[in-house]
């Protein structure tokens, strides 16, 4: 019994209550065979039409093509998302001022990063000045 069947039908069962006379099918089969009229058979091309024969292969090819397309689309999306850049490319990108500004504008660099980098630059500037003074003193 299928789950789609109702409770009433589950209680009833599948026996319809019909019966046939004894040997009915054996007798009727013989009777029908005997009553078959003479017919002229002209069509001998019993092979199914070309479309019927190739239909399973066409369906299979379409399925594989569909899977291939889906994989292509999926791979394309993941590659776009990856956006892997080499160190050289990052360095080159950072040299272009507009890129750096855009990077900051996109909130990729926090305010603290900017303050820290400013302080670092001051520190390195002082180091350079100190080393220049030392050089002058040595001379």
């Amino acid at each position, binding site marked *: 019994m299928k789950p*789609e*069947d*109702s409770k*009433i*039908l589950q209680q*009833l069962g*599948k*026996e*319809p*209550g*019909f*019966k*046939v*006379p004894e040997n*009915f*099918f054996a007798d*009727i*089969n013989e*009777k*029908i*065979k005997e*009553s*078959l*009229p003479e*017919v*002229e*058979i*002209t*069509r*001998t*091309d*019993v*092979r*199914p*039409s070309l479309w*019927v024969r190739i239909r399973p292969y066409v369906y299979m090819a379409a399925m594989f093509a569909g899977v291939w397309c889906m994989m292509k689309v999926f791979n394309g999306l993941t590659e776009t998302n990856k956006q892997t850049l080499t160190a050289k490319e990052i360095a080159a990108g950072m040299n272009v001022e507009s890129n750096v500004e855009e990077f900051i504008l996109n909130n990729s660099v926090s305010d603290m990063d900017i303050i820290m980098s400013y302080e670092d630059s001051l520190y390195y500037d002082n180091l350079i000045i100190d080393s220049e003074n030392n050089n002058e003193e040595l001379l």
Partner: protein
Amino acid sequence: MAGKYTYDEEQIVEQLHNPATAREAFGKVIEHYSQTIYWQIRRMVFDHDDASDIMQNTFIKAWTNIDNFRGDAKLSTWLHKIAINESITFINKKKALNNIPIDSDDSFLAKTLESDPWFDGDETQLKLQQAIASLPEKQRLVFNMRYYDEMKYEDMSEILGTSVGALKASYHHAIKKIESFFTDND
């Protein structure tokens, strides 16, 4: 069902189109499908003698049109289609004879079941047959094919030329109507 014959459909279809072997091959088709076709018709028309006559007409019609069978569909699908057409034609003729409108349901067919010598069902089985008879023709066909023959929806779709979704809906409606019939006639 195959009886004393071995049945290979592909081979049978080839033999059916060879004048020398066609008659014998069609004999095998009758042996193989007579029970399935008979029960399909019997559940539509209820009366044994009517079902027997319609089955004979079905096989004779199939035989006389054997030249038109190309083998694109299964033989069983083709035979079921002919059997359904023959059954519906018979029911419509009977409706006309009894002055019953052609668009009314087929409940009148089940009225003689009680006195039918070839029906030995109990009260509940009789009630179920009356409930089935009250369904619209297409729902009745779908219900019988699914419930009694446990036919796949895909096969039913080929025979009835209706989508699988529509057949599922039809079967669902048929069950609901049968349940209502039992509730209303308790």
